[in-house]
């Protein structure tokens, strides 16, 4: 490899990402120059003329795409390939930022191998351009992009493996009598159990998604016991956020008995509440209003006092695989299918899920219509 001659300019406004990325790339034998914003990035690009630019997209202006546009006007700097670093939200946006076969993007959070593979892929393409021309490079770029798109959409693998590993590890330790400290044993086994819950929920999601995709979602309505079927599960989910010390306030109005497919409606509601828990500040308050109708229907409201959702995202959050995440941490991990599932389930039952304006935070309203007189309701 001729790595040692190559210089990579890394631009990110998050110092921790910049530090980590630079160390990783240097480790692989490249020279690294860093910048903490777009303006500095443009200056450094002109100064050092790097072989590749690795830049965050979301930065105070000029952002990554804007930098790319400005540099492309320059005859020398315009041909420097770009790799954009971006959060996993809206695949289309990312692809639209990529104008040239030499460009690429990588989705945060990424693993080292993936990052280095993408850097090398871009260098390979540039070499192809020199050897076989631009068309060939474009063709390879399109293939690569398609492959990556599939990888993003098949993110389940990782999401399933992590909780499974977190179940197996404590069990293996216990089976091998490796615990010397009873407190530790208790903590590890409790950790295994909470990962069982995680895995169970992911599997429920996969089953629901598959049923939705094949148009055979269960819509048979059964009587719902609010405490047992809904609140108990919600409280269990709240345990995941124990360190945030959230205040959970169920407000249940009197009315008839709710009828809905149990698994489906519970999973849908859990996603709405999980979202509220996830984006609530420490010590925040989440209200869950349940207003049963007279003939099996209900209106559910989930109110939080978190950061809220900007109007331009109010529909996008319901997209499949939408995920609010800007960092490299897995803090907000998940498949990004929660709100999509919630809306799909309510829609399939003839209802709706919408985001409403709240004075503070976010208000989600889910409507389950009354069942029609000829609907069969099972115990």
């Amino acid at each position, binding site marked *: 490899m001729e790595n040692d001659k190559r210089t990579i300019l890394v631009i990110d406004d*998050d*110092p*921790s*990402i910049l*530090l*980590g990325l*630079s*160390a*990783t790339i*240097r*480790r*692989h034998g490249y020279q690294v120059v860093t910048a903490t914003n777009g303006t500095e990035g443009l200056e450094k690009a002109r100064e050092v003329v790097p072989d590749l630019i690795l830049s965050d997209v979301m930065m105070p202006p000029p952002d990554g795409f804007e930098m790319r546009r400005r540099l492309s006007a320059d005859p020398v700097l315009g041909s420097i390939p770009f790799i954009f670093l971006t959060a996993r939200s809206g695949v289309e946006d990312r692809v639209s930022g990529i104008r040239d076969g030499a460009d690429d993007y990588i989705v945060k959070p990424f693993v*080292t191998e993936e990052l280095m593979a993408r850097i090398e892929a871009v260098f390979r393409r540039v070499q192809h351009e020199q050897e076989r021309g631009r068309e060939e490079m474009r063709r390879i770029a399109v293939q690569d992009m398609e492959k990556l798109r599939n990888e993003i959409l098949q993110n389940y693998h990782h999401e399933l493996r*992590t909780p499974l590993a*977190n179940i197996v*590890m*404590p069990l293996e*330790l216990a089976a091998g009598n*490796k*615990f010397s*400290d009873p407190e*530790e044993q208790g*903590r*590890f086994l*409790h*950790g295994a159990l909470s990962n069982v819950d995680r895995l169970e929920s992911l599997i429920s999601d996969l089953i629901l998604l598959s049923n939705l995709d094949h148009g055979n979602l269960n819509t048979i309505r059964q009587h719902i016991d609010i405490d047992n079927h809904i609140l108990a599960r919600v409280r269990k989910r709240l345990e995941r956020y124990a*360190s945030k010390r959230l205040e959970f306030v169920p407000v249940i109005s009197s009315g008839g008995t709710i009828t809905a497919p149990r698994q489906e409606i519970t999973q849908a509601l859990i996603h709405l509440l999980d979202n509220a828990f996830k984006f609530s500040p420490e010590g925040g308050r989440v209200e869950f209003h349940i207003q049963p109708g007279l003939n099996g229907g209900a209106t559910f409201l989930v109110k939080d006092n978190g950061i809220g959702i900007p109007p331009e995202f109010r529909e996008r959050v319901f997209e499949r695989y939408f995920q609010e995440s800007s*960092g*490299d*941490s897995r*803090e907000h991990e998940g498949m990004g299918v929660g709100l999509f599932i919630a809306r799909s389930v309510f829609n399939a039952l003839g209802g709706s899920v919408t985001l409403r304006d709240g004075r503070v935070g976010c208000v989600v309203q889910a409507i389950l219509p009354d069942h029609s007189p000829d609907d069969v309701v099972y115990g």
Partner: protein
Amino acid sequence: MKNEKADDAFISPEQGVYLVVNRQIIPLVKKVTRLGRQLENDVVFHEEFLSRFHAEIHYEDGKFILHDLDSTSGTFVNSRKIDRCVLNSGDLISLANLQIMFVNNNPILAGKSRGMTQSLDKKKTSNSST
């Protein structure tokens, strides 16, 4: 270890050696940096599968050496389980579900431990065990 009290000795505040974890940058400034769940550690993580005192990073002869403290879930560097290991800039330390990047931007110190990361034979460094 010649000096029993060496644990608290500062190397230099601006030496350019860090741990990067969960978007936080933690400078390494002590001769011994302890990682674990217990509050007495230098770096405390609330991660359920971590031991109370999980691992230590020792600064010895210009090198940073990661020691596993006989932890229950183990200490890994670049996905390999280790007891002791010399750290190189860009190494990824895994403690349970935590991913910690070791960064050494100090040209003098980084030069001393250049080369591929390797597990150290326990016997070679047994005199410095705690």
